[in-house]
């Protein structure tokens, strides 16, 4: 399940927008301009089923997203979707992994408190006995230079 964001969860001044998400979902997003820096030395790891529903998260995922594990398991991965991310980036992600190939890109993720964090994300299909059974996504600390390039590029992709 994916719920609209609640003002009481948000830290700081926020803006509001309604995002159309994959699978015909829509969600009211409340977002701020507060960045949480990516911690050194950590990886954020999650797995989803074939439909993009979260089945596993590690502790770094919980800490950086601000959600509890119970809120994340069973939720669509688009719970992290930030309105500044162009839909074309996610179309490219799904088009790539659906052909069985790894995808890599720089992503601005949304936190439960309305803030954001940048990651370098790699998504890989989990192939078991020849069948894709889900996807693993691993995020690491991005280069600030690459993030600055994305901050300029992404608004041009809408």
């Amino acid at each position, binding site marked *: 399940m994916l719920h609209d964001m609640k003002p009481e969860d948000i830290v700081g001044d926020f803006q509001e927008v309604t995002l159309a998400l994959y699978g015909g979902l829509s969600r009211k997003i409340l977002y701020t301009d507060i960045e949480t820096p990516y911690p*050194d*030395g950590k990886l954020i*790891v999650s797995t989803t089923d074939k439909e993009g529903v979260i089945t596993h998260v590690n502790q770094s995922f919980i800490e950086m997203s601000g959600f509890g594990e119970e809120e994340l398991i069973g939720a669509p991965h688009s719970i992290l979707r930030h309105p500044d991310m162009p839909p074309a980036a996610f179309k490219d992600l799904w088009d790539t992994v659906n052909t069985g190939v*790894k995808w890599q890109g720089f992503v601005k993720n949304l936190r439960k408190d309305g803030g954001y964090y940048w990651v370098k994300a790699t998504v*890989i299909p989990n192939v078991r006995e020849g069948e894709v059974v889900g996807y*693993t996504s691993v995020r*690491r600390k991005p280069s600030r230079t*690459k993030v600055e390039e994305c901050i300029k590029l992404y608004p041009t992709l809408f």
Partner: protein
Amino acid sequence: MSYQFTVSPDFTPIHLSGWYIFNTWLQKQTDNAIHLEMYNDFQEQRDAIKNDNVDLIYANPFDAAMLVREKGFKPLVKSAGESDEAIIAVNAENHVEDVAHLEAGIRLAVTDDPDVRMMGMIMLEPGDLDESNIEVIPSDTYVIVAKHLLKNEADAGIFLAESYDELSKMIRRQLRVLVRSQISVIHHSLMIGPRLLDQREKIHDTLIQMNNDDKGRGVLESLGFEQWQTVDDEEMEFMIDLMDTLTM
């Protein structure tokens, strides 16, 4: 029939005799003739695996994908509660405070330990460093990595965290850790090859019960381990997928 056992060449030197003691223990417990072959480097070991000479291996996570997907190996156990972590360190007198401030062209002391090198290079990415804009200073051991830093022959070094922590206090006082990984899910594993697969359950159970008697505990101690912990097929597949994302 005699089987061959081998250990990832990045084992800590003080545990060399421990692996021979473990092999003797394992032969007695499982009633198999097992020869322990220690290879000098990863390439020699990979050649042996490719030639189907290896039946049992304490494997570096970097080689797990090849062992499982190309050679039909299955996981048995790992050292309980342990994972491979990497450290980026500099000479204590170096003024750099953040790994992101290391500059292109730095001299980086590294061993040929593949998973540690990979984790270390990932931690250098925030500073826009990669294999193309660093000067690699090859080092046989982590002690040599430390020596390169102390003599200012390298600007930064990549260590296996466990090996860094085992350096003498005097050496560590002259070094400074910029970043230590906290990945938790990358680990060495004892893996079993196709010729021994029919004994997988028996060998697994023997290993899992190893810490239940004094003799077994003593052998584990000689390896620096407390006890073995099961690695099932899905945990191994998960680690292989994760390693796959990190090698891109």
